[in-house]
């Protein structure tokens, strides 16, 4: 049942760049590279800003996942909805959010995409239908499935129908909500594609130490959901696999499961030195780095030349410089605004006390 294209890690057949690139418009390919370069520059800068204490809390980067991120976002239509994890800076950028507003969120500024209230793990944009980063593992899966349910009340299936994309990590396939929600999506025929971003690890845990069926794309079997694995370092392969799954979701209301295999180049979050990974493994991964790889291949294929590539890289750096400047100059949220957005519908007696404030305006004064 599970589409067997690529059945084991690395066992994914490589199409020669020639043939693969030939069928693409050069502008498209250059666009993919620019997006990947932007994400790379943004993430490296985020790490730096975290070290400089401009960013707090947890900060998870997409380093090594750039091809997956850009391939997925290339397949997703503006009318579609996206639910992501806490490792989502790149998706926000590729979906079209201003880098400045994303960096401002990481800095906790009022100009941030979530008004500085969500931070790195909780990027949200209603207009771009980016329905959130989520920090609770698996927590995004039921709401994403519910969003797909809501779409079935808006209109019937068809090529122009809206769909939902729900991202999750490899380690997240072991949590109950994955099972429950995929069952509901299949049972109710919901227009949703679940994408497992398999970066090889859940924190320090390799896939086969966490999943008794480590071929994660096969895990749709329990719901009759077809699964497919693609090389997450191949932006085009990722895009095409998801385009196919999205098409089935739109026209047949057939939920899909796609596993994109890439590698997390650094620690789980910026504070994790990843000592559990050997030097050799580190070396090997750097060899698989999708960003320099695509750059070289595009140059070899004559789609880019070195100056053009350098120009793209410099542009990316420049955009990130601007993003940091914007974030830096932006104002902190005002403490007076603390209770804003606590509730959507105002009702009497909603709490608004600060620590140590008296309970009642009129405390028990003299009788």
């Amino acid at each position, binding site marked *: 049942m599970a589409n067997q294209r690529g059945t084991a890690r690395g066992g994914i057949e490589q199409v020669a760049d020639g043939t693969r690139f030939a069928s693409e418009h050069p502008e498209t390919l250059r666009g993919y590279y620019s997006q990947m370069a932007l994400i790379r520059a943004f993430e490296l800068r985020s790490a730096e800003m975290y070290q400089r204490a401009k960013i707090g809390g947890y900060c998870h980067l997409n380093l090594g996942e750039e091809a997956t991120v850009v391939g997925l976002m290339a397949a997703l239509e503006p009318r579609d909805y996206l639910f992501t994890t806490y490792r989502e800076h790149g998706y926000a950028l590729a979906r079209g959010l201003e880098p400045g507003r994303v960096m401002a969120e990481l800095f906790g500024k009022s100009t941030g995409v979530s008004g500085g209230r969500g931070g790195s793990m909780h990027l949200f944009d209603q207009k771009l239908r980016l329905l959130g980063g989520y920090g609770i593992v698996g*927590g995004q899966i039921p*709401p994403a499935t519910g969003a797909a349910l809501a779409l079935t*009340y808006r209109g019937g299936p068809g090529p122009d129908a809206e769909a939902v994309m729900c991202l999750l990590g490899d380690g997240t396939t072991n949590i109950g*909500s994955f099972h429950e929600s995929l069952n509901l999506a299949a049972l109710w025929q919901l227009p949703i594609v679940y994408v497992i971003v398999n970066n090889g690890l859940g924190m320090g845990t390799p896939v086969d130490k966490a999943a008794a069926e480590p071929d994660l794309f096969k895990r749709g079997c329990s719901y009759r959901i077809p699964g497919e694995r693609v090389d997450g370092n191949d932006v085009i392969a990722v895009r095409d696999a998801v385009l196919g799954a999205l098409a089935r979701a739109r026209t047949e209301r057939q939920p899909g499961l796609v596993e994109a295999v890439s590698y997390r180049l650094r620690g789980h979050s910026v504070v994790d030195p990843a000592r559990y990974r050997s030097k050799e493994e580190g070396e090997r991964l750097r060899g698989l780095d999708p960003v320099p790889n695509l750059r070289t291949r595009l140059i070899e294929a004559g789609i880019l030349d070195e100056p053009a590539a350098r120009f793209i890289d410099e542009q990316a750096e420049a955009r990130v410089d601007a993003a940091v400047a914007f974030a830096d100059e932006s104002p902190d949220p005002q403490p007076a605004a603390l209770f804003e957005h606590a509730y959507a519908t105002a*009702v009497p*007696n909603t709490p608004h006390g600060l620590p140590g404030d008296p309970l009642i305006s009129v405390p028990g004064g003299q009788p």
Partner: protein
Amino acid sequence: MTLMSYRQALHDTLRAELQRDESVILLGEEIGVFEGSYKITAGLLTEFGPTRVRDTPICEESFVGVAVGAAMLGMRPVVEIMTINFSLLAINQIVNHAAKMHAMFGGQVCVPMVIRTPGGGGQQLAATHSQNLEVWYAHVPGMKVVAPATPADAKALLSAAIRDDDPVLFLENLALYNTKGEVPGGEQVAQIGVAAVVKPGRDLTVVSYSRGTVVAVEAATQLEQQGVSVEVVDLRSLRPLDRETVCASVRKTSRAVVLEDDWLSYGVGAEIAATIQEGAFDYLDAPVRRVAAAEVPLPYAKSLELAALPTATDLGKVIGEVLDASRFTR
């Protein structure tokens, strides 16, 4: 005004809201074909069809989370969780997700959903099926928690909850479904966050909610004959909590007792007593006392269950003690 049961009031209100607003949908286990474990949704599947009244598999976390996501896209899901005991399987979606999204995402999205669920013991359902855990939800900012005691409030608060743009936990009670009361016709939409003095009195205030309010009113009516004038405050909303109405009553009566079905320690009554001692300190003639359930996993055996749960008799006894402690003369 029509005399009807709490169950009927809930049923009719769900039906009216389904008719009024296309975006209202019902989700839950056995609410359709089976007509609901407690038959609140009887007939609604037939009338509104399987897309508006949707039976779900057994997966509390996901069908509640599905409601959260549907609400994010503008639907108004009303979820039934068979009993509050099972809400523990969905609490990650309720507290870590539904209650957080509006604030955490900077006000860009709201989650207009209602979670209907009955609490309560006394049915010999044993330890895992007899809990009163509403205090957990009442503790959480981002949530609203209402707990109607009468059929009329069941109607008005359910309408309000469905029309509210925040996640609302709507607490029902197994022992209330068959209770009857007068219910006004037409649209009735209550104000969430406001308590009510359901029986005025001079000598002592009893604060309660849900089933406890019914018991308190009974007890108060009996005490009336014995020359004790008890005022009963029905909280109606646990979050937000109407502290002023509670304290105003105690400033008048100078004595207070809380009746609650949950366990005493860290229960709803703790907040009420803490509120009163701060909001009416100089008026209190005696400590605020709490009448609550014995702190044990509730046993199945009737003899033990009866011993563990608070009754009108327990309430009467404590009211007497408070009156004596404050030298009240009949």
